[in-house]
């Protein structure tokens, strides 16, 4: 191990095809899967960068207003009390990952993971400033000339600018984008806003610009347990050994069968394009992030050789090893799918029917009860109304549980709460002493919210009266 080169020019490990190098210059690829990934990059990053600029009913459509502790997602408003929905959503996301991985392996890694998506953009910026992989290698090894300075400078300019914009967009999900933009331009943003812009920007730069696939290889937990979700019918990127071997070079015109060769011409292109530096012909490896670059490049080579495409392709273990057809619908997939559907349906129902009104009834702790003239007993409560809607509401209160129970409010009527207001109101309940059992009684407070979004909430409370001969049950 001590013979391993310490970066720089690098030297060959004896007997190996590879040279360990501080920096890899993966060959550029184009093709079906590269196009798919580009599409994913545009769609996902498009959503990320544009969403903070979309308005909905006069405010930012998606805004996680941390200072106000409210979360707006289009027409919905969530409160910290709705945290349960987020947990539910995370469970759905995890199961979705299981489901997709069981069907087609690490699609997430290849097309949707932020690490992949941002790395792709950083690679693109590197390519337009420093050129293709060969020119980049030459540039890195060459002397510091004016051109090198300009090219490197341009790359850093793009990288840093894009990172900062990414950081800005991240913070814009928490502070309205337009407001944040003005604040930053006039240097009047709060210290934390500035800090998070730089922090997230720095993380983007480090992860997508510098670390790249090393994150997948060393730090990603998913890479370590994904194989537990695979079975022999999972579509994975596979090298068709039966067709490819024995591999070897040949003239384009030569008949491989006559020469005793398989279809693999051993051009090493699949290794050259691999961002994690593995040889897919050795079989599935933990480092493979399913980017399908080897599929694209090998198809190119096969076309040039006039061989059929698909020497490296998405296929299953069963199809490759046992010549069985690809089977997508199988118990594992159906079970994952069924659970996923049930969770999604439950989530949609729960969000649609979630309470828009929280009512809390708290007994006054200092006074058990009070006797009033006229044979009445009074209990005092504090009622908290949380109006979770974006419209004004007023409330009608009633109570039952004891005969002759009456309510009295100190607050001015009608009882109104503003959009999103949390309002605490003292409430007195009165009942004739003769109607109150000795141990007290459970009463129910009914709150009817009127307005654009009506709601009815019932809350139980304890009503206590004197435990002596004045009570009926004595």
């Amino acid at each position: 191990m001590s013979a391993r080169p310490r970066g720089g020019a690098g030297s060959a490990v004896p007997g190996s095809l590879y040279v360990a190098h501080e920096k890899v210059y993966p060959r550029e690829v184009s093709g079906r899967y590269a196009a798919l990934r580009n599409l994913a990059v545009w769609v996902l990053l498009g959503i990320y960068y544009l969403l903070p600029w979309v308005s909905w009913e006069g405010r930012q459509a998606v805004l996680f207003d941390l200072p106000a502790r409210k979360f707006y997602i289009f027409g919905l408003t969530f409160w910290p009390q709705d945290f349960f929905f987020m947990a539910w959503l995370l469970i759905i996301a995890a199961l979705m990952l299981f489901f997709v991985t069981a069907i087609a392996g690490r699609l997430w890694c290849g097309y949707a993971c932020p690490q992949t998506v941002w790395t792709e953009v950083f690679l693109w910026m590197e390519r337009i400033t420093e050129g293709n992989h060969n020119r980049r290698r030459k540039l890195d090894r060459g002397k510091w000339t004016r051109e090198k300075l300009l090219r490197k400078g341009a790359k850093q300019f793009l990288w840093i600018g894009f990172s900062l914009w990414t950081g800005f967009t991240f913070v814009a999900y928490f502070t309205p984008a337009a407001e944040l933009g003005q604040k930053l331009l006039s240097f009047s943003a709060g210290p934390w806003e500035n800090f998070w812009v730089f922090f997230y920007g720095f993380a983007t730069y480090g992860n997508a610009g510098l670390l790249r696939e090393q994150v997948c290889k060393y730090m990603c937990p998913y890479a370590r347990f994904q194989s537990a979700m695979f079975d022999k019918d999972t579509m994975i990127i596979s090298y068709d050994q039966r067709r490819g071997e024995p591999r070897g070079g040949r003239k384009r015109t030569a008949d491989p069968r006559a020469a005793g060769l398989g279809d693999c011409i051993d051009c090493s292109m699949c290794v050259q394009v691999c961002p994690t530096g593995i040889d897919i012909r050795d079989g599935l490896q933990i480092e493979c992030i399913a980017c399908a670059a080897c599929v694209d490049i090998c198809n190119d080579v096969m076309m040039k050789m006039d061989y059929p495409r698909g020497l490296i392709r998405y296929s299953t273990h069963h199809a490759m090893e046992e010549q069985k057809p690809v089977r997508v619908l199988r118990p594992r997939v159906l079970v994952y799918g069924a659970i996923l559907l049930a969770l999604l349906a439950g989530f949609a129902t729960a969000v649609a029917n979630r309470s828009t009104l929280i009512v809390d009834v708290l007994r006054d702790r200092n006074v058990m009860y009070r006797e009033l003239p006229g044979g009445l007993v009074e209990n005092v409560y504090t009622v908290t109304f949380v109006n979770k809607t974006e419209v004004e509401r007023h409330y009608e209160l009633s109570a039952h549980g004891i005969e002759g129970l009456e309510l009295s409010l100190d607050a001015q009527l009608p009882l109104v709460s503003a959009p999103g207001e949390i309002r605490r109101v003292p409430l007195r309940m009165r009942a004739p002493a003769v109607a109150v059992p000795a141990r007290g009684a459970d009463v129910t407070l009914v709150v009817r919210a009127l307005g654009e979004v009506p709601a009815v909430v019932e809350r139980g409370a304890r009503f206590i009266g004197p435990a002596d001969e004045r009570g009926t049950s004595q």
Partner: protein
Amino acid sequence: MAISPHGQRFDALVERPRLWRRWQRDVGYTLWVSFLMACAAATVFFAMVDPEILSGTTTPGWEISRQAGYAIGFFGFWMLTAVTATFVIWLVRSEPAGVAEGTRDERRDLP
């Protein structure tokens, strides 16, 4: 010119990224895992606790805004989880030989 294990000649060797050294892996594992856990912890914690109310009742003398509270909470969690991760990695790495049964290295030596 290099020669592949299959006898094919290449005009250039294929580059593959240099493997991370142990300290690099340790730093990577520690920071990343603790970061993920700190995100989760901060989210759950602040879904239930309002930092303004928390600072109002525990440190009434300091003026800590909600935004500062979130940041302090997040980095506090991160520090805690990072220290834990460091400790764990150190314990695992410094396992004396002969103490551990069934470790990875031992299994690799089996036929």
